[in-house]
């Protein structure tokens, strides 16, 4: 009996220790999530989207040489692993004199990587806009750029919205790769704390939970956005 209660006490103190570790590390990880993961995701997504729209527009307009260049970019980017791209840019480029900080490397690689996928999304969305929209625009006296900006692109964005949302979610998860180029982001922080205190399983699960929180929030925003778009005539007949 005595022995038993002793064991429980020891067990309780162990649970307490884990619990304390959790309550201490959670705010730390969350802080990195909010200060690094989210801004990095947003900035890289913005870069990716800018790249994607440019690449998709070039392909849509069918400019010969540039179009080839775009296909080449998409081919390379989608055909190689993100981790390898990160290593090439951060560890490799210094060999030829290009030294980028880990932040900048992560930003560029994540942006251009997801940009290739989003370019394909946008290209499909642009091509799904009926040709008649362009023709009606011309007949109303508008020029190519005006029709693109006011009619075709907005419709393409609506079509692409769910897929772009998925890209954003992928982006949030992919930022964890930046840990491999020594960037002080959330997942690397989990690695560092677990190195100091053990509790590897708990810490990594904790990081996973925070990613899950972020992605769940994004999914929720995505649904909300789709509802708002549908209200504004977003559903194509």
């Amino acid at each position: 009996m005595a022995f038993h209660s002793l064991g429980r006490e020891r067990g309780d103190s162990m649970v307490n220790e884990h619990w304390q570790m959790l309550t201490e590390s959670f705010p730390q990880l969350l802080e990195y999530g909010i200060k690094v993961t989210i801004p990095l995701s947003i900035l890289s997504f913005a870069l990716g989207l800018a790249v994607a729209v440019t690449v998709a527009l070039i392909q849509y307009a069918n400019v010969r040489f540039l179009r080839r260049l775009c296909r080449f970019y998409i081919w390379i980017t989608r055909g190689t692993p993100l981790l390898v791209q990160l290593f090439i840019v951060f560890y490799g480029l210094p060999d030829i004199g290009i030294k980028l900080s880990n932040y900048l490397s992560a930003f560029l690689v994540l942006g251009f990587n997801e940009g290739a996928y989003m370019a394909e999304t946008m290209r499909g969305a642009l091509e799904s806009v009926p040709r008649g929209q362009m023709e009606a625009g011309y007949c109303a006296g508008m020029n190519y750029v005006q029709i693109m900006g006011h009619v075709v692109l907005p419709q393409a964005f609506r079509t692409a919205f769910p897929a772009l949302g998925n890209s954003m979610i992928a982006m949030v998860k992919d930022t964890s790769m930046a840990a491999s180029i020594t960037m002080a982001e959330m997942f690397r922080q989990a690695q560092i704390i677990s190195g100091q205190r053990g509790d590897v399983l708990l810490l990594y699960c904790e990081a996973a939970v925070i990613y899950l929180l972020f992605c769940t929030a994004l999914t929720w925003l995505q649904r909300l956005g789709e509802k708002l778009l549908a209200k504004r005539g977003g559903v194509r007949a």
Partner: protein
Amino acid sequence: MMLDIQNVRKRFGDREVLKGISLTVDKGDVVAILGPSGSGKTTFLRCLNFLEKADGGALVFDGAHFDLHTASKADIARVRKKTAFVFQNFNLFLNKTVLQNVTLGLEKGRGMKKNDARAAALRALEHVGMADRLESYPSQLSGGQQQRVAIARALASDPEIIYFDEPTSALDPELIGEVLSVMRQLAKEGMTMLVVTHEMDFARNVSNKVLFMADGTAVETGPSRDFFENPKADRSRDFIRSILAARE
């Protein structure tokens, strides 16, 4: 004479779709363009507005000469400013409200001020009986309503001529009447129109001229009354007979 269309030619691959179509249009004319399916009616209209690049032919529009094959961007813009196009499947801007559908071209394409564009749009929408649906999106309208908005979009730019490509063909039968009555009204007000149509009542009673096409040629051109009461070409006669027979 307001518009002289000369010898429009167009081929797709090795298929000659328009073999030299000419037509003279006076102010206030309503020309019905008739002909069997595949005769080139749509292609003809599209060439006139440079939606399709003709292989040859010319327009003399208010005395100014435009080559349909070699026209510069500026010339194309000039011609398009004088004209408007109503499509078979409406082609309303799907991401814009009824009001925006009309104002967009006025503001961006024609550089009109916001308030002026709005006023012109409201006038045009009232004209077609759609002024009570300003904030609706195309997907929330019936086909007949969409086509009336499309006509308002055409009207609002104050064109000298409106091209219609089978404006009622995509509509359910019970919605055709509302669009035709708008067009009849426009004709009465003296709007110049080129109308590709299969609506024989419209061709007979509203249009004053007929262009009958077959196999990319203009088989017969003339006053509507003559065409229906006294067709000259055999093909015209056959066409009228087949249409009347299809009605029985």
